[in-house]
């Protein structure tokens, strides 16, 4: 290669001065947002991590460095392990139900109908309603008296009133039911966007070949929604591992702690008990577990793509 050609090739690889200026300008435009994120997300995140290694009750004295003592407590007290495990299984149960139901709803909404706009709005509305207000309705429905709430209907139909709050099964059921009712809308709309992005000619060709509806779903729809599924599941895992408001408002961890989850414990340790050191340590453990779940899911995804 001649010297001239080499120089030309180098010049091609190096961005021009104008390009560099544009990049700098773009970063300058983004700078306020970086600062905003650093101030409101990064600094509190790092401070929260730091608190995990301290003892601090937000009164008087400054955080006192205690090293790994909070983590030692976390791993030596069986209660914390039980809370983490409950966070995982209750969160994953809620996520599974939400994913399946939202997918089925998206399939239903993907048909041509004059009233589909109303249905789309209806399933989205719970997501923009205040959790505190809508959970209050759920709690009122779960009144244990025979002549109140759902029990009124059950007894009118000849059944026996249910003491919902005594049963772990029923409290988990209502937590999951509320979680799905509240979050199914956005997931269904995302699924729907994915469904509408699939080339219709594929379905037409499948029909010509005699494929049934479920075969079309199995061989065209599901593979076509791989990336949408990845987004929904990944954000869903993170959401499920942070599930606490529903627990707080519906069961408060009852009956006697059997529906309590780690995220609700973190909230209570942090803002009710003011054991901010322990809350920081618990947050770090939960964060690490969430990241591990997300990485495991991504690994599974990549492996299925390679195959």
């Amino acid at each position: 290669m001649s010297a001239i050609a080499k120089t030309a090739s180098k010049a091609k690889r190096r961005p021009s001065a104008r390009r560099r200026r544009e990049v700098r300008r773009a970063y300058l435009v983004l700078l306020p947002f970086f600062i905003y994120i650093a101030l409101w997300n990064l600094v509190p995140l790092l401070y929260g991590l730091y608190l995990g290694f301290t003892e601090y009750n937000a009164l008087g004295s400054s955080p006192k460095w205690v090293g790994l003592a909070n983590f030692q407590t976390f791993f030596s007290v069986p209660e914390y392990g039980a809370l983490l495990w409950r966070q995982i299984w209750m969160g994953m149960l809620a996520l599974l139900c939400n994913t399946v139901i939202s997918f089925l709803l998206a399939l239903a909404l993907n048909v041509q109908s004059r009233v589909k706009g109303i249905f789309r709005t209806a399933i989205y509305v719970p997501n923009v309603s205040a959790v505190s207000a809508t959970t209050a309705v759920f709690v009122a429905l779960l009144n244990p008296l025979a002549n109140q709430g759902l029990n009124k209907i059950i007894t009118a139909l000849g059944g026996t009133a249910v003491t919902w709050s005594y049963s772990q099964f029923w409290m988990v059921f209502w937590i999951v039911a509320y979680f799905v009712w509240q979050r199914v809308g956005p997931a269904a709309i995302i699924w729907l966007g994915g469904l509408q992005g699939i080339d219709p000619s594929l379905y037409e060709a499948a029909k010509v070949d005699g494929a049934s509806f479920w075969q079309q779903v199995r061989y065209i729809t599901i593979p076509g929604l791989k990336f949408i599924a990845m987004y929904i599941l990944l954000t869903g895992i993170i959401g499920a591992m942070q599930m606490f408001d529903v627990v707080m408002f519906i069961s408060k961890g009852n009956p006697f702690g059997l529906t309590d989850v780690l995220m609700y414990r973190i909230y209570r340790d942090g803002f009710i008990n003011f054991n901010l050191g322990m809350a920081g340590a618990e947050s770090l453990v939960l964060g690490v577990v969430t990241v591990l779940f997300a990485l495991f899911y991504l690994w599974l995804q990549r492996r299925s793509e390679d195959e």
Partner: protein
Amino acid sequence: MRTTRKFAALLVAMVMCLALVACAAPAKTPADSAAPTGAGNETEAPGETATPQASGEGVKLSVVMLGYNDTQIEAAKAKDGGPVNSDHYYMTNREKAEAAYPDIAFEWNDWGWAEALDQKQRAAIAANTPPSCIAGESFIPTYANSGILQEVPADVLEGIDPSFIAYGADGKPYAIAYKTSIFMLFYNKDLLSRAGLDPEVAPTTWSEWQRMSEQITAAGNGEYWGGGVPSFPHNGGALRATPFFRQLGTDFGGNDSINLSDPKVQQVLDYIRTMDKNFPAGLGNNSDEGPMWNAFEKKGEQNLAFAVNGTWQEASALRNGVNLGVAPLPLPDEGGEIGNCLVGTVYIGVPVGVSPEETSAFWDFYKNVCLSAEQLQYWIDESCVVPLTSMIEDDALYEGEGKAGLRVAIDALRAGTYSGQASFAKNDSQVWEIINQQVLARVTMTQDPIDQICQQAQAQIEPLLK
């Protein structure tokens, strides 16, 4: 290039301005923390016709739970039937303070109650910008023992009943309550009559109460119930159970010890379990207290004969037309003593970090306005007990219609000194949560052996206290 530089300079200037504004909050220095507690605060004894000292020029008082802000006043005026007595207390506190202290700038904060208030106060303390006073109930001992409260000046304590003073572990007074209540037994006379019981005879012992409650539940046959000791899985449960423990000379514990292995504790828990059968299932231990109070007093319901509640229940039940009876809590059949627990107490203290001028001005205002007999009368009319010994001793204040509960409370207060719920030196909320959920609620929700329940909870709590 020049445009980029200009743009960058503008951005840097904006960021610096933002940073300056953000950091400009008036911070109090630790030097202020060593504030003397009311030195030179020459005020009159509370309860007398107080003449507030028109001092404090240039001082700003930022207060909590002592006066309404404009929004709260509007909300009180918009109530059906207009403001109630408690509203009048907060509204007139403000009016009187602003008239008596024209040189002081008052800030009337609405920071909520319980956890919300605790969170806001701790945030202010952590930011080194505490309000002029802090308020609270169950968390006040934690504040006092954390060294963030100033000692109450001796002259402010004059004429105050000791039950209303919050002491720290060091025995020093750190806060004074302007109102409180104790628990008593309220009953619906109509339901007693319907069950064939004499409506004028209240139970005096545990076994009498159990017998009467069971008779009412049996007669009600699913339509009305006798009721028992609430075991809500939150502090409302522990608070109402505490008097029964104290009647046997025991308690859940306190400071650095937990007492669930005490046979007397287990005896009370057994009684609570027995009495819970006289509630409809799920009512006595519901995480929402609302259905229980509705069952006792709401028009159209009123199907619960007995309720253990604070004195405020009287005014509320009478407003709802309950044919109400009030009695002291029944005592154990053998070996019992009168015991109770303060509830609905609003303690007020001054945090460390408030300047001497502000501290002095605050105690002057609190003593001469908020603790004046005229203002405290609003709380008596709301069926609450007030701290002035002169008012506690004045029989005339507790006579007449709707004062039966208050008379019971005053008699109890005259007979002894009461304290609030016990507090634990470490992880107080977490310990109470275990007691409420894993002990009280579990005792009534399951048939698990009580000694096993207590043993498991004791094992969970002990590491939290170390």
